[in-house]
């Protein structure tokens, strides 16, 4: 190892930064890759149904699909508007 190397190691290397960013990104992309293809359409239709009854925004609903060894979970999350807004 040359003298120069000691200076370089003092700050975090860009390679480890790259690895960290890629690990997060690849994990995220792999999980969304395994989602069923009907998910976006279903999300859109669910939103339409909910909007018949409650005035919610486009992003008020989130659907997530998770898969592990022995089960698949479909999680549906709807954020209802504030009470104050509902009363007006």
């Amino acid at each position, binding site marked *: 190892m040359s003298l120069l190397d000691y200076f370089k190691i003092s700050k975090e290397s860009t390679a480890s930064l*790259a690895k960290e960013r890629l690990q997060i990104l690849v994990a995220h992309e792999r999980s969304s890759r395994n989602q069923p293809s009907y998910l976006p359409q279903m999300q859109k239709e669910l939103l339409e149904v909910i909007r018949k009854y409650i005035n919610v925004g486009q992003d008020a609903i989130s659907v997530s699909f998770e898969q592990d060894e022995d089960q698949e979970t479909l999680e549906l999350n709807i954020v209802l508007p504030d009470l104050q807004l509902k009363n007006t």
Partner: protein
Amino acid sequence: MARIIVVTSGKGGVGKTTTSAAIAMGLAKKGHKTAVIDFDVGLRNLDLIMGCERRVVYDFVNVINGEATLNQALIRDKNCNQLYILPASQTRDKDALSQEGVGKILDELKKEFKYIVCDSPAGIEKGAHLAMYYADDAFIVTNPEVSSVRDSDRMLGILSSKSRRAELNEEPIKEYLLLSRYSPDRVKLGEMLSVEDVQDILSLHLLGVIPESKSVLNASNSGMPVILDEKSDAGQAYADIVDRYLGEDRPHRFIDEDKGFFRKLFGGK
């Protein structure tokens, strides 16, 4: 039994064609009758890398359309009589290749050849899809660089869901990592992802590391697959890769930095 190998990456410029030319030549030099096909319709370049650009008469699309026979279109390599090249067409029609047509030609090639190497175009469009669709083995060419690693992972997803083997629920395509343009010196300085880093991220079987090398440009300049430059580091790396693919035991090289004091001092190749 013939094997179809796709050389793919998603990202462009990582060394797919260089790799296709090198491993096809390597397999042929080992005595296996090999065909290498350029799937990059509209941007053919394998002919240049193989040094047969002036001998192209008919191409892949001509054969699919029945305008020429396979034997008329195949070009016998000037350095190795076990190696044949099927050039891509320079047509601008992106739909010139069809899944059915490609399948028919591959079936025909399988009768005569031991290995069929498919040089995929960059991207995930039709050409790339067809190059990998019928594959038995996939060589994923990756550079130790963020966008290339990400695109390789994307290709892995496509291989495992959109290939013939995936669609027919057959044994999946065997995937191998070829890490190219590797600079051990820069890895040591923390400036470049290491082999282990890339393997951790992609979880792929490493077939070999190809060092960043001046010999690659010299080889393409002269239209000789770099594997024929037996003195060069990249040529040796590809020779190792071919041997490992054929089941021979070759320890990995070119992963650690060059220790030679004088070469370091004078910045050798």
